[in-house]
């Protein structure tokens, strides 16, 4: 994985899919992937995207009362 990427962890599947859909609509390249081993998540899935887009997604998550965990890849 590129060091320019980061992971977004969510509470549940609903939020993962909602965030993914928002990324697609806003032309943000995103992948739904399994949560890597070091991290615990509520639902087993997370989003991987460019760090440059992370702030936009975090803002969307905040506006929609999503509880997220934002993790730079490689840490």
């Amino acid at each position, binding site marked *: 994985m590129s060091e320019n990427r980061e992971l977004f962890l969510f509470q*549940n*599947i*609903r939020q993962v*899919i*909602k965030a993914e*859909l928002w990324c697609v609509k806003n032309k943000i390249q995103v992948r739904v992937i399994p949560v890597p081993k070091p991290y615990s998540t*509520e639902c*087993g*899935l997370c989003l991987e995207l460019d760090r440059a887009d992370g702030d936009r997604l975090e803002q969307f998550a905040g506006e929609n009362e999503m*509880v997220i965990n934002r993790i730079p890849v490689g840490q």
Partner: protein
Amino acid sequence: MNLYFDNCATSFPKPAAVAEAMTRHLNETGGTYGRSAYPRILNSTRLVEECRDQLAGRMGTIQADKIILTANATTALNLMIQGICRKGGHVLTSAMEHNAIARPLEHLRQQGLIEWELLESAADGSILVDKIASKLRPNTILVAVCHMSNVNGMAQSPGEIKQAIGEIPLLIDASQSLGQYPVEVDRWGVDFLAFTGHKSLLGPTGTGGAFLRRPELVEPLVFGGTGSGSDSLSMPAFVPDRFEAGTPNITGIHGLNAALKNRPVACHSADDFATLLSEVKTNKNYRVRCADDFARQGKLFSVVHQRLSSSELAHRFYEEYGIESRAGLHCAPLAHRHLGSFPYGDCRFSLSPYHTVEELNHLAKAIHDVGK
């Protein structure tokens, strides 16, 4: 001709896309909800969430996250009624209730947990909103009302009811109304709503759910795996997971989503239906059960014949005119008591958007001829 006039029981036909979506899921795509990241499961999960968003639009809320999916409206109503009611509570309901609300309330009363009573209503069952305040008590914990009667099609005014009860939670049973009549939970301030997928929404049986604006007031009814918070033995605190234990009816939800996205344009107008109702009312051998105000009329009505029983009526409609209708109490004994047709019930006709003017005319003729 489509002579099926029992759409209140379950809608038929469905949009062709419903069966196509369900067959596709069963035979081609497969996949459950969440829990893994391979494409089959992701695509299925995306579709479930699309359905939740479609439902939010249909019921007039921006809070799709607070919609939970259940097997039917009865399950959703039990979740909310049993999950909200606490010992010593007092519940108000309407004279037009279906047993989906009345029986859970009566069960809780028999357990010694709550008291419940009826709100005052006009002759057609519409709640007298200006009388609500006199029924409220300090321990009133819930007002639970069916939006549209499944006996006479009269629609209540949830926004006015909510204004009259203030912060007391309002639960609306939209089993008949959602899909055929305006539902605007955000504008009305409705706290809880139950719906089914297989009636006016034209989806398959085994689908339905609830909207919970105030989920913190509700205890879960079913406990189990949610694919979230799995490190804990307690149910998650967040929605919809808190109320969605177990694998959902994925195939059915795919069908419901297809129904929501492929709603047919009605083959008859409101005026056509009004004309039918007016014609039926001219027959003096019937008492016609409908809303006093046509603006509050859903696409259903029922009749009581002065001589024939409801079962005899329904039998003759089928034998002589091929019309499938519904006789009896329609699981709504309270409504029939209020309307004066208990315990014999009446004969109900409920329309589909697929009915044409020709088919409505056939129904009008059948009602006229059988009623002679």
